[in-house]
C-alpha cells in the first residue's frame, strides 16, 4: 500500500469538501445579511404609514415625518440619492418608498388631494420628510 499516495488523496478530498462547504456557508451568510437588513419590510411599513398620514390630512396641512431609519437603510443599500427614497405620484394617488437599489414599495391613498413640495431635510437633528397637502388639481 502506498501510504503517501493515500494520504495525498485523503487530503485532496478534504480540501475539496472544505472549499464547497465554505462557498455554501458564505453565500448563505450573504443572503442572510441582506434579509436581516429588512429593506423590503421597512419600505412596506413607511409607504403604508405615509399613506395613512395623507389620508387623514386636509388641504393646507404641512406634514413632517421622521424617516431616520429609512434613510439609514437607504444609505447602507447605496440607493442613488436620498430624494429617490420617497416619491409621490399625484396622478395615481400613490406613494413609493425605495430602500434598496432596484425595488420600491408602493401604496395608494384614497384622499383626493395632491402632495406638493416633498423634501428630505438631513440631520435637523434627525432626517425628516416634509411635504404639503393641497386641493387636487383637475
Amino acid at each position, binding site marked *: 500500500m502506498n501510504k503517501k499516495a493515500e494520504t495525498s488523496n485523503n487530503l485532496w478530498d478534504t480540501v475539496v469538501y472544505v472549499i464547497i462547504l465554505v462557498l455554501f456557508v458564505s453565500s448563505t451568510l450573504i443572503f442572510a445579511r441582506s434579509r*436581516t437588513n429588512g429593506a423590503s*419590510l421597512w419600505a412596506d411599513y413607511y409607504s*403604508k404609514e405615509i399613506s*395613512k398620514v395623507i*389620508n*387623514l390630512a386636509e388641504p393646507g396641512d404641512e406634514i413632517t415625518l421622521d424617516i431616520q431609519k429609512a434613510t439609514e437603510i437607504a444609505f447602507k443599500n447605496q440607493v442613488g440619492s436620498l430624494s*429617490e427614497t420617497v416619491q409621490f405620484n399625484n396622478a395615481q394617488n400613490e406613494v413609493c418608498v425605495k430602500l434598496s437599489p*432596484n425595488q420600491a414599495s408602493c401604496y395608494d*391613498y*384614497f384622499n383626493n388631494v395632491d402632495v406638493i413640495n416633498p423634501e428630505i431635510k438631513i440631520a435637523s437633528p434627525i432626517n425628516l420628510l416634509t411635504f404639503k397637502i393641497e386641493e387636487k388639481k383637475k
Partner: protein
Amino acid sequence: MNCKAQAGDWLMIFPFMLFCTILAITISIGLGAFFQSDYDFKKVDSTSLNQKVLDCLEKENLPENQEHIKDFLENTCKINQNKINEHFVLTIFVNNEIKYSAGSHDSSECNLDEISASSPACITSLLEKNSVNYKIISGSTQNSEEKLA
C-alpha cells in the same frame, strides 16, 4: 491505484453538495419568511376611510340620489372613487336601506377576512343625525405593490 474506489470517492461529493444546497435553501426560506412577513394594514386603512366618511357626514348632508352621492364623496368628502373601486369597499346605509355601495368587493364578504386573504378587512360605524340613522361599512383589500425602480 484502485480506480473504482477513487471514482466512488469522488462521486460522494455530489450527495454532499446536495445536502449543503438543501441546508442553504431551508435557511433562506426561514429567513425570508421571518423578515419579509407582511405588515398588515387593511384594518388601519378601513378605519381611516370610515373616519373620513363619518367626519364628512357629521358636517354635511348626504344627497338622496346615487349619482349625487358619488359626486358628494368625491368633491365634498375628498374621497377618490377610482381608488375605492380598486382597493376598498364602501357601503352607506340610511335608516337600514342601502343608499350607496362601491368597491372591489361586496360588503357581505367582510366577515371572511380571517379565512381568506383576499377578503376585505372591514369597519362598521353608526351615526345618528337629525333623526336619520347612518351605517357606514368600509373595508380595504389593498396590499402594497413592489415595483422595479
